[in-house]
């Protein structure tokens, strides 16, 4: 396909990835059912592998179109930005439902859990120990990603790399500390509605931190390969937006679930 056109839109090539992505998603869901019924994870693993391959190749192609072919014009970038904004908005609503469940259960605790929050028998985490450290880590990572962005806008490649690398390290540090906290937890996901709301909300947040760290790692590689310029670096900006979103969700989790609800 030619990379030259007389308009500013991006007419994409025929792509196999929506099809392979859909089939992979069906493999994942069917694989989960098979696992639950027969304790057999072969279809689930196949689904994970196919999903991973689809993701890698689809985003690789997006990079090819944007960085190598120059098809991400100003107008195309506006569309991509709106896509990211709508995606993050949908993610906000996703977390809104878990906070709704938490406040529903905690604001008027049922008689079955002792009419108290945390429920009778639940020993909650001290919010001023590991959770506060995690808050500091995420806030610091928000600062370092901004440092990387400003360095990038000033064409300071070295500092942009340093700032972004530090952000990725802080993201991994958060995940490690959170994993330790889960390992040490005196309650499980099966311990009343406290355990359910706690692990579903913080677990999905942890998943989003891992996704954000992967997104930032890809950006770190692309920055190292000089894919980003001072004026054109939408992939990096999208990753930074996503990272700030994950950061803000943590602040709400910390304040409501760990601090107020602990």
């Amino acid at each position: 396909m030619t990379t030259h056109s007389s308009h500013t839109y991006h007419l994409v090539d025929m792509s196999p990835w929506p099809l392979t992505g859909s089939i992979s998603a069906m493999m994942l869901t069917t694989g989960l059912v098979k696992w639950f019924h027969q304790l057999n994870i072969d279809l689930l693993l196949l689904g994970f592998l196919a999903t991973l391959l689809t993701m890698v190749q689809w985003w690789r192609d997006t990079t090819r179109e944007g960085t190598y072919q120059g098809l991400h014009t100003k107008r195309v970038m506006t569309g991509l930005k709106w896509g990211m904004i709508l995606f993050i908005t949908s993610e906000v609503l996703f977390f809104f439902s878990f906070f709704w469940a938490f406040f529903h259960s905690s604001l008027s605790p049922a008689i079955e859990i002792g009419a108290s929050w945390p429920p009778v028998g639940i020993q909650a985490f001290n919010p001023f120990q590991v959770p506060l450290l995690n808050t500091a880590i995420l806030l610091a990572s928000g600062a370092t990603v901004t440092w990387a962005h400003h360095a990038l806008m000033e064409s300071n490649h070295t500092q942009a790399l340093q700032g972004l690398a530090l952000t990725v390290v802080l993201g991994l540090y958060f995940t490690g500390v959170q994993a330790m906290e889960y390992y040490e937890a005196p309650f499980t996901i099966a311990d009343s509605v406290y355990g359910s709301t706690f692990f579903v909300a913080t677990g999905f947040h942890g998943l989003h931190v891992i996704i954000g760290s992967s997104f930032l790692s890809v950006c770190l590689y692309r920055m190292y390969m000089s894919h980003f310029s001072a004026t054109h670096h939408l992939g990096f900006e999208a990753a930074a937006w996503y990272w700030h979103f994950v950061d803000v969700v943590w602040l709400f989790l910390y304040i409501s679930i760990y601090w107020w609800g602990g």
Partner: protein
Amino acid sequence: MFYQRSSVTGRLTSVNGVQTPSTLSAAVEGPAVTYPVGTTFPKELPAGKGVPGLLAQKMKLFQASNDIPIHLKGGPVDKVLFGTTIALCAVGLAGCLQYFYSMSFPKKNTE
């Protein structure tokens, strides 16, 4: 005649193109621009690093005018990855259908 002031040379220059018949397009030049002594011109500035070699190679490869779709344009590795993905999807789809069938028509316990 259509002409404009060039922001590069600072002179009035006729524009070649559809607006001006080429046979009539005598260049309209203003007086030569005199620059203050010590002016640094862009071409005299040290050259930047430009597009790094590997990136330039990739740009050339992916901007080549051929009918290869973007997901295969990178070379043989692309074909292997694409083939693997399609094969996994085919096997997985068959696995899904086989599982749906086995759940829909479970084998009766003969004992």
